């Protein structure tokens, strides 16, 4: 009998970890002493679990490029550019617990979207961070994914269903979810192709009629003082960017030779401290003008469509020591110390979005339509509905 074979060759045991509800007893309970000797069990005939093709399943659409900027690149849109590895992935890995402790306020517009979903909906949160929105609507089931394992571990510790995955290449089959959300994620993608692909993925994984909510940081920040703390990235080093870059920022096809700028003192007028890159790539950066000029310079930046920034994250020393990642980050020049603030300063890469940019990204999509768009708390937001 297959069933008795299963009893012999598989096992499961009840664990008291992570839950306070009474344990359901079944005939297959083994006590933990027995199980401690059964560490690894390979499933016999694992290949038998792999079924043949399902003909009714949507096939994964081939990567379509409806932008032009990838045509000269030999690397696919799913290949992670260096700037994201260094200034997104590694940073979030290093700051995860501290970052998580600051992410608790539930944004009303996101909460409203989630609360409006039908009872029993499956919601996919791509780029879920510390899981702030997972489970927000108790009538829905949430599955979160993020590229940062440290952040995902925080979600898992809270009992959420999560996995480590790349928003540009979601490991989900098509049409499964009722809704998907991407909250403050796409602005960390450094090329238009990757941003488009991530949106396509969000639409792909929801069913027909499913909704997708996307929020991203806006160029048009309500708090101008905040923007002055950011470092605009004016030129890009080819290797830093790996191939496709924002086309409108390339003034010539030749690669740029960039120099490091010596560190400048941060002062109360809001000058931005410079930083030194490692020899692998150096970036030119400007210091902000003084307060008197800030309005003019902001206008100049807006006129020039400045959308690429490094945004600092101050990780307090006591937090940095706990994480351990900061020692190597400092050694590599990825982060620097600010003794005055008692913090390790990391820079996060952002492509902030201009008005209408989200709409432009989705305008070529044949299987989704915009059903709502709004500006809220310095974020551009859009809701899409999958139509086919």
């Amino acid at each position, binding site marked *: 009998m297959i069933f008795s074979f299963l009893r012999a060759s598989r096992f499961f*045991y009840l664990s008291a970890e992570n839950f306070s509800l009474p344990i359901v007893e079944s005939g297959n309970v083994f006590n933990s002493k027995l199980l401690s000797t059964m*560490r690894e069990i*390979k499933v016999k005939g*694992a290949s038998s*679990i792999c079924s043949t093709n399902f003909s009714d399943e949507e096939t994964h659409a081939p990567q379509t490029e409806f932008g032009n900027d990838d045509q000269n690149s030999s690397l696919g849109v*799913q290949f992670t550019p260096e700037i994201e590895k260094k200034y997104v992935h590694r940073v979030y890995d290093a700051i995860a617990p501290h970052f998580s402790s600051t992410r608790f306020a539930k944004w009303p517009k996101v909460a409203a979207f989630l609360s409006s979903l039908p009872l*029993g909906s499956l919601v996919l949160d791509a780029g879920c961070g510390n899981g702030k929105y997972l489970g927000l609507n108790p009538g829905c089931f949430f599955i979160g994914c993020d590229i940062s*394992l440290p952040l995902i571990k925080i979600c898992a510790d809270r009992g959420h269903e999560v996995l480590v995955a790349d928003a540009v290449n979601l490991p*989900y089959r098509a049409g499964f979810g009722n809704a998907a959300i991407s909250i403050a994620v796409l602005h960390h993608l450094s090329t238009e192709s990757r941003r488009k692909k991530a949106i396509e993925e969000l639409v792909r994984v929801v069913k027909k009629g499913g909704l997708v909510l996307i929020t991203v940081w806006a160029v048009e920040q309500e708090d101008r003082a905040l923007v002055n703390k950011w470092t605009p990235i004016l030129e890009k080093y080819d290797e830093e960017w790996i191939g496709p870059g924002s086309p409108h920022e390339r003034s010539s096809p030749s690669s740029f030779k960039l120099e490091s700028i010596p560190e400048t003192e941060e002062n109360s007028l809001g000058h931005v401290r410079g930083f030194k890159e490692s020899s692998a790539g150096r970036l030119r950066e400007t210091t902000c003008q003084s307060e008197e000029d800030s309005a003019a310079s902001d206008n100049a930046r807006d006129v020039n469509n400045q959308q690429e920034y490094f945004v600092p994250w101050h990780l307090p020393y006591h937090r940095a020591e706990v994480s351990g990642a900061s020692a190597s980050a400092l050694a590599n020049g990825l982060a620097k110390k600010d003794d005055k603030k008692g913090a390790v300063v990391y820079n996060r890469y952002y492509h902030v979005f201009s008005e209408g940019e989200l709409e432009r990204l989705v305008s070529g999509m044949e299987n989704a339509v915009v059903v709502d768009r709004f500006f809220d708390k310095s974020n551009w937001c859009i809701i899409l509905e999958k139509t086919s």
Partner: protein
Amino acid sequence: MRLLTHNMLSSNVKGVTNGFPLGIEVEKVVEKQVELSADFLINIFSKIEWKALVDASRAVGYAELPDQADASMLDSDEFLRKFHHALLELHLEEGALLCPETGRRFPVNKGIPNMLLHEDEV
């Protein structure tokens, strides 16, 4: 990782035509009770690839699901209970998921699958 998630996961390794369903390598399974929601089960049923769920539940030691199922069975409390149990209460804590075409192992640690590809697989 719950079997609900397994039913949704697909190998996205470059060149793979059908990465679903992933094989399951079991090291440690944990059972965690959670409240049953009939609304959710009824909503999700049509999305579930039933054979993959049956095979996966057997892999983790639960053999109560019928080989075939149709929506009319959702009227039965007993069926709902078994469906709920298999879908949401069985967790693969340690093990791996296997790409059906390439055999590529996606590790599962502390209940968390890692589906990130290496650069040469993208």
